[in-house]
């Protein structure tokens, strides 16, 4: 077995192990939380924003500014358009 094959085998094993671990956790997770589509803007705001940083209060920006901020966060945190829309809606109402 040459070095390249050995290296790819090692990489593949690492990836396969990771995928298996994620799959198990994913199955566990699916059974314990609310369906994604039923989550409100407030819930999505709490879950997604707090995952990386302290949540910014809704009063910190104006409505039009929240549109831009959440668009930025959609690209950064890989939000769906629906999630981003719900979060913006919540922030505008709470503002």
């Amino acid at each position, binding site marked *: 077995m040459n*070095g*390249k094959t050995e*290296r*790819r085998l*090692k*990489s593949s094993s*690492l*990836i396969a192990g*990771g*995928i298996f*671990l*994620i799959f198990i*956790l*994913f*199955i*566990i*997770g*699916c*059974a*314990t*939380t*609310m*369906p*994604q*589509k039923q989550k409100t803007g407030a819930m999505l705001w709490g*879950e997604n924003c*707090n*995952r*990386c*940083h*302290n*949540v*910014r*209060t809704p009063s910190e*920006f104006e409505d*039009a*500014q929240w*549109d*831009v*901020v959440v*668009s*930025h966060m*959609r*690209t*950064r*945190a*890989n*939000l*769906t*358009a*629906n*999630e981003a829309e719900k979060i913006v809606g919540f922030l505008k109402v709470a503002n």
Partner: protein
Amino acid sequence: MSKLRFVLVSALLIIFSVSIAQAQNSKQRTNFLLSGFGYTNFEKAQDGISSFNSGFSPIFLWKSGERLFFEGEAEFELEDGATNAGLEYAQMFYSLNNNMQVGVGKFLNPNNLFMERLHPTWINRLPNNPLGVSGHGGVALLATAQLGMQIKGAVPLKSSKFTYALYISNGPAINISEAARDSGAVADGHGESAAAPGTLDFSNYNDNNNNKAFGGRIGLFPLPQLEIGLGFEIANVGGEASPLVDLQAITNVFDLSYTRASSLLKGQFDIRSQFISLTIDKSDEEQLNYKNESSSGYGQIAYRPNKIANRLLKNCEFVFRYDYLDLPEFAYLNSDLQRTTFGLNYWLAPNSAIKFAFENKTIKGHEEETESMFITQFALGF
């Protein structure tokens, strides 16, 4: 493989161009916002001279209509007696649908969690980056940013979702020995690079070869508070006209993030971890003729008792991080590093903190030595 990537890039560029034309024809409203972050550090290394340092990174955001979005970040730093200005990222996004966005330009490296989301000073719980992660000194195993194009988004799956990002970019270039460079034996297009042979140069803005790096990341959320990610990158790193043209570098990344508020412990836990493995082909060329495998990783836990009544204590956060960097045994740079850091943060607001950190670093080269450093940082996100 190269032809396939060329076709893929061309197809994505056509889709992107058509989409922009459609967006410009529709009724739209443009919104602009100036955001960003700044910091001031005070550092005192063991047996070293204490010093202040400062910098800031303005972020320019434009939203044009419902689908087009631009984000750009400049970076101003003080380093070696001069003010360095840089372009951290500048990319235009088009939202194709609910689940997918296409981006072109220079973008934060999406194959790992830390660089894309956790590195701003008001988000990072400690004043510096983990070992092996690009930026601000030391050997990097990952690029800070990629120059190319990407697709990214998320797909809901019942009570959870998965996120994805795939990109094609210039990718890194291999740093080679000065002797090989001077003799013309290896033409890599990076004659000015002074970095150590065998490491990667991620500032590959004028690509050194026709091969494009291909990478990405998938993120899953087994629990709402838990994100697990797997990232990768495959790139040829040698110069187009050199014997190193087929030299390949493969990067694998595993990252984990768990954030949970606990009523029992009256506070919030924040756990982060990231592991990077980089393997570069062995070459017959001078100073590249060894098993070139590097790895780095970090584990970090932070606790903030924000549910207690005491106003002073509820704004405090306690942080511990362990990180390491293993470099190839026979490389020009081969010292392995291990570091432990204890931190105490005081949050003035959700977007500003004063951080105090004490780190102890062990350097394992020909001889083992230890270094310690005290760092204070004031960080503000705006």
